[in-house]
């Protein structure tokens, strides 16, 4: 009986699973969770959890991947510091070096998008934002913690380009995700840092 139940787990763990004393309780519990999950699959859980998650800043992303990503993130952070201190050339160079170290680091492109938006370059910002989104997606990290940047920056681009209706709508979502960050409809370097 125990052996047969193991196939749904990793086979290598079968013996360990078999040794669990309360396996009889765990299986019905798992079924209950599955039942609730399937029943709730029609609900928009995304909106419900969004406000619970903290925005994933460049600093918070440190230590989550590998040393290359960390080095790249540190360069992004250095660039954000330069941006905050009004040294845009140095900031751009740091972002470029961040891309050089790890071209798949989405924060480098987010920082570039923010940098260009602050300088009034919505045309330049758009493609970087697309790139950041594609990379977050390829890392399967899309979710409220990073959407807070994407939605807000997209709204900022809309505002710059005169698409105010769209900008209002997106800023509203961004403010739901993080009222503190998007209250002023701007993303400062420190906030992304």
């Amino acid at each position, binding site marked *: 009986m125990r052996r047969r139940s193991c196939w749904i787990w990793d086979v290598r763990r079968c013996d360990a699973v078999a040794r669990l004393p309360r396996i009889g309780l765990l299986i019905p519990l798992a079924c209950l969770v*599955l039942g609730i*999950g*399937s029943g709730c*699959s*029609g609900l928009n859980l995304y909106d419900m959890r969004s406000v619970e998650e903290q925005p994933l800043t460049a600093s918070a992303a440190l230590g989550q991947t*590998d*040393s*290359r990503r*960390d*080095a790249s993130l*540190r*360069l992004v952070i*250095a660039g954000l510091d330069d941006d905050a201190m009004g040294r845009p*050339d*140095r900031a*751009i*160079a*740091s*972002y*470029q*070096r961040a*891309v*050089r*170290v790890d*071209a*798949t680091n989405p924060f480098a*492109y987010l920082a*570039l*998008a923010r940098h260009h938006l602050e300088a009034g370059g919505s045309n*330049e*910002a*758009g*493609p*970087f*934002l*697309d*790139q950041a989104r*594609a*990379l977050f*997606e*390829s*890392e*399967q990290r*899309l979710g409220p913690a990073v959407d807070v940047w994407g939605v807000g920056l997209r709204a900022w681009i809309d505002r710059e380009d005169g698409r105010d209706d769209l900008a209002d709508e997106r800023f509203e979502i961004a403010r739901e995700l993080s009222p503190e960050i998007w209250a002023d409809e701007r993303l400062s370097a420190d906030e992304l840092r």
Partner: protein
Amino acid sequence: MARAKGKKSAKKRTTKRKRGSSGESESLSPALLRARRVGLVVVVLAFGAGLWVAGWLLELDRIVVSRFEGRRFSVPSRVYAAPIVIYPGADWQRLDLAGWLTRMGYREQAEAGPLSVGSYRWLPGRLRVHLRGFDHPQLPEDDRKVEFRLEEGRVREIRDNRGAFVDVVALEPEPISSFFGSDREQRDLVEIEHVPDHLVAAIYAVEDRRFEEHHGIDPRRIVGAMLANLRAGGIRQGGSTLTQQLVKNFFLTPERTLRRKVTEAVMALTVEARYTKSQILEAYLNEIYMGRRGSTAIHGVGEASRFFFGKRVVDLALDESALLAAVIQSPNAMSPHRHSERARNRRNLVLDLMAAQGRVSPEEAETARARRISLASIALESGQDRYFLDELARQLPEVYDEDLLSVEGLRIYSTLDPMIQRAAVRALHDGLEGLEKRLAGSSKVETSEAEEQPPLQGCLLAMRPQTGEILAMVGGRDYATSQWNRCTLARRQVGSVFKPIVYAAALSPQSGPVVTLASSVPDEPLQVETRDGLWEPVNYDKEFRGPVLVRDALERSLNVPAARIGQAVGIGKVVEMARRLGIESGLPAVPSLALGTAEVSPLEIATVYSTFANGGLRPTPRSFIGLLDDRGVGQEQWPLEGSRRVLDPGTAFLTTSLLEGVVDRGTGVGIRARGLRGPIAGKTGTTDDEYDLWFVGFTPEIVAVVWLGYDEPRQIGVPSSRGALPIWADFLSEVTGERVRGVFARPAGVERIEIDPTSGARAMAGCPERRPEYFLEGTAPKLTCPRGATSRAGFFERLFGS
């Protein structure tokens, strides 16, 4: 009235004197007359000569002024690679940190004591370096001391000289090459304020001790030299001052004639009259010839300082300054690289002279004498980098033309990655050599005939898909024999490398989509009416396989299914897709386009595949990021540009997935056979009669194109999988190691469903075979295996999401 009278009487007196004079001449002897005439001629000639000399002096002055007040030196613009960034966790051996130290002329300092700028010291598990500062268009760095703590091939941590942790260190960009003029002179201009006093003192001591006192020529020195030469019975000593040496190098030829010496002396006086000692000395220090590096002449103490010691002039020590001064007299005979003993003796002589003249203390001279000569290694530039330079020059704005680049001393900061470039050079070179040996072994062509034929050529180009930065470019086998850049200028048939464009067009929602990855396509004889007659494509092996799934068709690079898909989607749509993905060359809107009959450059193909690798975002190829003038002032910047979306992420992913299959199971499986693991996608391409061999492949972080062929197209004799693919694999293996980083992740809007690999139907319980396949949402097969089984996918998809 009185004044008028006076004038009249004066006129009369003059007239009388003239008459009297005329009367005298009549009475003069012919000899006297002749003498007077000669005297007159002499006066006229002297006046004429005076005029000529004045004109000559003015001309010399004009020459001096125009040279001194215009651009004094032609300084070739130098191109730098992108900086290497070192960080904790980095593989320092792969990044070739030790090689970088050597190439950049850093000196190993074995003796204890503080490291001087541009030197390093190996200790157990540690590397201490005193990094030089460097200019950069956006982020210059000051010099600093760092310690790399190393462990098992990786950098464990980095600390500064106070022991604080350092996150990242950007190393000084390597100079790749320069845009030389016809004279191939290299110099690094220095300003007099940055020249250490002991270097000036050393040069004064040995070359012109009274420089500060004389006015361009030094009579005492000339007499002294003459006496010395008389005693020696030949020319042993020169009498030229620094000003004369400068004049000779600046304006005159090296011939030894009296006329040249006089001109030199006059010009030296002119220079001294017009300019300050400080200006003259600065010009001298930047002009003086100091030796050769390969085919390049080293001029000036700035370049010489880097060449000999790997450091800036301002960082020179006394013994190094003395050595530079020692070399000036005869740079080749005193070259410390070739004649170290001779150079050391002369250096010591310079130090003795300095002490004797009171320019340094005897103790200082003695300490400097005791130091052994420690030279930086000589890094000769690789000719193969010139292909990249040519492309960079082509991409620069028009104002930076060839003439300007060869004289203005610009510093151009490029995207080239030195490590990746070296890997590309090596892989292409070794691959072509190996292939030719194999071909020669199996060839039926007579050896003598084969030797007469031009060699097999190739190109290897690497690009970063997210930014379009060109990381490596080798446009041919040997730049010295052929400067034709096959990566950018050649247009060659692409063959099957074009097929993914056809598949992308067919998979794209914009076209319907026409097919899914599980669609079945007949691999059966096909006839298409064209303007030129009936077109009947066949497969590489001339076989037909009946119905095949789309994925299998591309993995096996089957021509007939590709042609059918091209027909189904429409050649117009295929052309449109190719344009969107980055192909600018002419594309014939004919059915055979689907099989790659178009002629396209490797750079365009790299852009297309970068777009797939980058999830449908197309980068713009770029080879430079900024430019400084010769004083280090920023002139231009080309910051990163974002990529533009030209393809939806779903279609880009499906195409990438197909190309991963090519590497995992199809014609590109040789990549895996060579031990490379991780996310790799790619496509082979062999044109009709094996005239062109391609392999284009990518990982999430790099795209590389290899093309092989003859400049005058003819058969190579092997397919791409045995020609271009091994070179690509060797290249990638060196760049990334055997384990490739990253993942080709499935974007939203793409679902993964089990299918029956034979029919392409959705695999349900009871289906004998199954494999996972990807579909754009809503395009998964409706048919099931076994036929009639009920699909429950909707339930599970809702449960787990997609």
